[in-house]
């Protein structure tokens, strides 16, 4: 059920209406019912995978907790807990791995050894990456004693399947989401208003900006040799498309959560204002970043073998390196996993490693940077330096987008080369190859204008948010006529400025 479909709109409206109509103690059951209807609308067979993850992580959570509480021998308890945890992780990540990465592995083996293994047809349940990460995060929290195991199966099932977030996140934490899901929520007009505004803003970003940018992105990345002068434009458009598509989807999801009185974690915090790649990952897909930090980075950094490596590095390269090198290595591992999470292709692994390498390199060079800044009298607080850092980060991020969007790594490299060697923006409107002509979109100039206008509006809103202004709160305090005008402008902008959201109506991250 696509977030832009009529079906979803009416489904969400029915869910919200019933939610406030039924007795409050039944609200969570209502949400569970709708969450399963939502998921089952994609097929009964895929729902079995969701059920499997729910049941295994529910049972494992209780067993891990019981092992810690009921087995008096600490060592034995720990071993038992570890066994249960490892089995659950293996089963769930195993399913994810088999369904998502088997064909990639077969192709790689074919490429390396000249074998001829054919592709296998797998059913890929929607949102499997998101709900697997969310439920495994819960299990690890229970194992580490950060959260209590949920003993109510149906309540736990709601945590795993909550319908607004199951397709593209945010990846929720049990500690933050659990209580909210099970609590009763009285009707709050102000919250509904905030939710509606957030949903409309999300649709605006997706339909008016991202879907216009996609015309250019698909044309340029689809024909890199024909549009050899437009590599730069292609990647800039992709950075706009990806941000507006993903963050727009998040706005819709978070807005729907607000309609139920549930606050979902923010996934974006103006990422293109980041001053370094590390900062970028604190602002982009935040819930994946924190998941990786808590469940991959820290366990890797604190593992026994990493301690050995740290000792070795200290001996070999000195105290400073001994501290920095393990962190660099852990970052490389984390971003390798991030790359693999993004998709079953080498380009995604390169994309992840590229990010990891920059962060590792920045970590290694940090003392040198400090010295250079001191020597050049550059203040961290100066506005010019801040802008320079933002621009530098934006360029680095855009380089990574080449890998993310291009067909494969050689195409990404070719496009980067062309970007440096040749720039020719006239190709956009060149007769015969005019962008949009092939897809029947004859409004190239209009689309460019809409993207520009949309980005300016987005920039203004982002600057205000960066300054700490709560625009939704300001909105709810306005006269009703002002509110009506804002709603009308946003609603009408969707058909006036937006492009059709493709036949699948898909958000990019809904395919994970």
């Amino acid at each position, binding site marked *: 059920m696509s977030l832009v*479909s*009529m079906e979803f709109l009416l489904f969400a409206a029915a869910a919200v209406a019933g939610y406030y109509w039924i007795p409050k103690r039944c609200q969570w059951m209502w949400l569970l019912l709708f969450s399963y209807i939502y998921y089952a609308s994609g097929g009964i067979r895929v729902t079995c995978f969701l059920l499997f993850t729910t049941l295994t992580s529910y049972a494992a959570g209780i067993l891990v907790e019981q092992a810690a509480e009921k087995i008096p021998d600490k060592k034995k308890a720990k071993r038992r807990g570890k066994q249960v945890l490892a089995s659950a992780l293996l089963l769930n990540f195993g399913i994810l791995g088999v369904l998502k990465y088997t064909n990639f592995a077969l192709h790689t083996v074919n490429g390396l050894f000249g074998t001829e293994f054919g592709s296998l047809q797998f059913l890929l349940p929607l949102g499997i990456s998101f709900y697997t990460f969310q439920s495994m995060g819960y299990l690890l929290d229970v194992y580490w004693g950060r959260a209590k195991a949920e003993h109510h199966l149906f309540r736990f099932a709601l945590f795993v399947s909550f319908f607004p977030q199951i397709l593209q996140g945010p990846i929720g934490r049990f500690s933050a989401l659990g209580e909210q899901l099970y609590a009763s929520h009285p009707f709050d*007009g102000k919250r509904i208003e905030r939710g509606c505004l957030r949903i409309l803003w999300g649709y605006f970003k997706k339909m008016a900006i991202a879907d216009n940018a996609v015309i250019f992105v698909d044309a340029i990345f689809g024909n890199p040799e024909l549009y050899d002068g437009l590599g730069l434009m292609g990647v800039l458009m992709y950075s706009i498309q990806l941000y507006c598509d993903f963050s727009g989807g998040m706005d819709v999801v978070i807005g729907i959560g607000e309609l139920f009185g549930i606050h979902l974690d923010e996934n974006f915090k103006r990422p293109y204002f980041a001053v370094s790649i590390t900062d970028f990952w604190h602002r982009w897909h935040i819930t994946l970043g924190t998941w990786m930090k808590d469940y991959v980075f820290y366990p890797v950094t604190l593992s026994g073998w990493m301690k050995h490596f740290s000792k070795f590095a200290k001996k070999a390269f000195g105290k400073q390196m001994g501290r920095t090198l393990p962190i660099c290595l852990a970052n490389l591992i984390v971003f390798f996993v991030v790359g693999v999470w993004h998709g079953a292709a080498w380009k995604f692994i390169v994309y992840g490693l590229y990010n990891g390498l920059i962060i590792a390199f920045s970590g290694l060079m940090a003392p040198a940077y400090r010295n250079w800044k001191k020597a050049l009298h550059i203040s961290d607080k100066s506005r010019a330096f801040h802008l320079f850092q933002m621009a530098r980060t934006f360029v680095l991020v855009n380089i990574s987008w080449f890998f993310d969007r291009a067909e494969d790594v050689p195409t990404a490299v070719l496009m980067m080369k062309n970007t440096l060697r040749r720039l020719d923006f006239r190709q956009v409107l060149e007769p015969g190859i005019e962008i949009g002509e092939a897809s029947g979109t004859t409004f190239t100039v209009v689309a460019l204008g809409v993207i520009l206008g949309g980005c300016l509006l987005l920039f203004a809103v982002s600057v205000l948010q960066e300054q700490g202004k709560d625009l939704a709160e300001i909105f709810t305090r306005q006269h009703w006529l002002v509110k009506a005008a804002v709603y009308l402008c946003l609603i009408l902008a969707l058909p006036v400025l937006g492009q*059709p959201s493709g036949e699948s109506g898909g958000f990019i991250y809904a395919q994970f």
Partner: protein
Amino acid sequence: MRNFKKLLLPAVVALVLAAVNFCLNYALIPYSYVRIMMHQIETQEYDTLFLGTSHGLNGISPKIIEEKTGGRVMNLCLGGEYPKDAYYLLKQACKKSSPKTVVYELDPGYWCTPEGQRGDFNRVFYEMPWSLTKLEYFFAKEWKLDFRAALFPWFYYRSQFRQMEEILAVKRGQEYQNFGAGPFQNEGQGYADGFMQNALATGPKPEGKLELWDEQEKNEDSFRYFEKMQAFCEKRGIRLIVITTPVPSETLEKYAEKFEESDRFFTEYLKGLGLEYWNYNRPERKIKDFDYSLNVYTDYEGHMWAGQAEQFSAQLGEDMIQ
């Protein structure tokens, strides 16, 4: 009072939206022959209905078929009409008519491509009068689509804003009020006598992007709705015939393998359903003295010019009475 104030905001937004929508639907959606078709099936009874795609719209003359078969004939073929649209058109038409025969013009491309979301794809739904059939059609067609398709029908006609004056002039005119076909006459084609009549085009013909049969890409919806159509006809004792119109010999030669594959597949499939399939591209269905050269078609896809359509319709009518 407080409740009233709370409702004021959504009420005003909804009212203004409804008003803007009404105005833009009127000003941007051009008059279409689909309106004439809808009016005709609402007000008249027919013995034979033709359903299908643009090949049928351009290639089947109801007048000629009427002359041959003696009954009243209506051509409801449309460009972009998938079996789903055909099924609901049939249901709508059968509210007034009790046809004895339904002829479905099959273009294999419509059975292996997803429904597009541009131009006229939503036209039948938009022009259909409010009824239970329309509600059913809504759930079948609009339900899974981008919500703007259903909420803002003018969305797909935004590009017409430069023609707004012209559209308004047509809609205020007598032809529109009386369901006339006058506004659809131009140099290249015109809607007359119940089908789209193409002028004989000279010069090079556009090849475009031919949607050829590909069994791997089967559109399950097309099969499902066709089978619903068959069940509907069976229940009402309507004879259902499936045809494929002739394409230029140049196209047939160029894509011989694909055409043969499609013929094999649909012959088998329709035989399984107990239906007749008249594929006019098969050697044994070749029409005597019929010019198959590209000269008498407007494109490689196989849209005929009016004279050719009349000749084909005559043969089709003959075959129907036999």
